[in-house]
């Protein structure tokens, strides 16, 4: 049976509810887990954790820099803090605190950035992280995960709590299109192949996985056979899956709800340049700040769509065998 659902539709629960459920389950089994917030608990959905574990949740107030540093210090005593904020405040605003207070001294802090890219929607440009993946990829030893839907939250949270080190979980908080059946296995650093194909490989993460699935259908109608990979772990990157795609398909399209520089597209380009160069086309945000609007409007505005993936797939196939 396929790991994918027969029909894709918006989930019945919000991502943040599913996340909080997963956290409560994990914290029930692991008494070291702490929830740290910086005044967006209501938004990122950790509220029920406070009811379940009032002594293990701290809302610092609007002080992300302190919240990150405090989390780092806590972890030095053996606790496992999960720090939550909107993606921009969880990464860009506190980059040095994550870098020096957490990662440089090998402490054990989990960072959750909500509202990635265009999912920040009506909060607009000030709240729209297109660069968080790039920033976090620059941190030595950090693990970066962006799931496509809420199905794997339980396993992801368990993995984050069980493995020592800096994790960045980039996740929407709203209802997202559910693509996976329950029970699908999540393994850090191991891409999930949703469809095999030989003409081109689409490597996507987050909300762009669903767009990649739709792009595959568009391409199929034109007789193009596309492989689709959910690269839920951006770091460490599943290089074997990337190189396998390069070898088998000879052309790769990346798709991410992020700047086309620094994130998944860059990671894939680096991997193929190192080992097996093939044409790569990137779908992402090019040299732009965020804007306000509905997610649907913004996906079209920034060309984060199945149609754009299919368009670039055809360009990429055209480039095969030509001078790289």
């Amino acid at each position, binding site marked *: 049976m396929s790991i994918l659902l027969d029909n894709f539709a918006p989930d019945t629960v919000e991502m943040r509810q599913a996340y909080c459920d997963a956290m409560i389950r994990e914290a029930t089994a692991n008494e070291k887990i702490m929830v740290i917030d910086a005044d967006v608990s209501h938004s990122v959905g950790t509220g029920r954790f406070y009811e379940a574990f009032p002594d*293990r949740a701290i809302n610092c107030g609007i002080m992300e*820099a302190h919240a990150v540093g405090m989390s780092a210090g*806590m972890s030095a005593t053996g606790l496992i803090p999960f720090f939550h904020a909107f993606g921009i405040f969880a990464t860009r605003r506190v980059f040095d605190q994550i870098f020096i207070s957490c990662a440089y001294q090998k402490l054990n802090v989990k960072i959750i950035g909500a509202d990635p890219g265009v999912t920040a929607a009506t909060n607009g440009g000030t709240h729209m992280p297109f660069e968080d993946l790039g920033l976090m990829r620059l941190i030595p030893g950090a693990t970066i995960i962006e799931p496509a839907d809420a199905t794997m939250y339980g396993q992801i949270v368990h993995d984050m709590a069980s493995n020592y080190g800096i994790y960045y979980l980039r996740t929407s908080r709203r209802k997202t299109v559910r693509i996976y059946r329950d029970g699908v296995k999540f393994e850090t650093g191991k891409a999930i192949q949703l469809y095999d194909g030989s003409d081109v490989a689409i490597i996507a993460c987050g909300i762009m996985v669903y767009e990649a699935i739709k792009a595959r259908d568009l391409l199929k109608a034109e007789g193009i056979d596309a492989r689709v990979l959910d690269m839920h772990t951006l770091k460490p990157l599943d290089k074997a899956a990337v190189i396998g795609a390069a070898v088998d398909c000879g052309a790769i399209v990346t798709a991410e709800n992020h700047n086309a520089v620094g994130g998944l597209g860059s990671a894939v380009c680096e991997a193929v340049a190192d080992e097996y160069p093939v044409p790569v086309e990137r779908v992402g945000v090019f040299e732009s700040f965020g804007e306000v609007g509905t997610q649907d409007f913004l996906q079209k505005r920034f060309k984060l769509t199945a149609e754009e993936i299919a368009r670039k797939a055809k360009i990429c196939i055209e480039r095969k065998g030509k001078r790289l």
Partner: protein
Amino acid sequence: MPSKKKPFDVKETMKAAAEIRKGVLRALAAAGSGHIGGSMSLAEMLAVLYTDVLNIDSSVPDMPERDYVVLSKGHCGPALYSTLAYKGYFPAEELLTLNKGGTNLPSHCDRLKTTGIDISTGSLGQGISLATGVAMGKKLQGIPGTVYVIVGDGELQEGQNWEALMFIAHHKLSNIVVIVDNNGRQLDGYTADICAEEDLKAKFEAFGFEAVRADGHDVRALYDAFCAASECGKPAAVICDTVKGHGCSLSEIDGFNHYMPVSPEDAEAAIAEIDRRLEVAYEHIA
């Protein structure tokens, strides 16, 4: 009244401060240069903490119930390394490896490299938050011990400090003591000229702290202040009035003394001066 955690011996602690300074000079001379000003102003504070106040055991450096020291002004690592060597965490000869490639004693404190360093620092303004996390972690898990975090007065220009202070006060953390090395100077000059901090005691009090000022080069005053701060049951701060570069004429200068070249001859002369000054000070006590 301060408790008598350990018998306090003024001469012994003054000697420790002198030895800390001498170790800094040897380390800096071996390296050729270093952060001398802020290291020298710290000597009495570190001497009092490590000789008379802290519950620590150099043979069990990771004892969970230990008191922690977070040197937020991480560039003054040489002073802390000298202290740790004096207390037997590692051989004094290791001080001569300061800043050399592959050393365990980098310019700025690194918990992964140096035995006895609990928290890495160097990016100013982050130490109080880190210390707060340690204090909160201890409190939540019922682990005894106090966290002493040392910040520079110049460093207090960083906004994150004030976030941390607000947090400490709100959570009524009483197992953390904020110590300010109030030497009045920062890298580029006098703090009063660059961005004046006015009355630090009043600022701490306004943030809900029990704050006292102490002569940062008077070991007895520091001992009393640290003991009172750790036992007051409230968020506490000790503002230690110091002189940047204090202890020897080499670094007691009005000009730039944040980071200075130190030759072996400089160090030798300064060490002899420190010994002479200690003898004179002993006579005053007697």
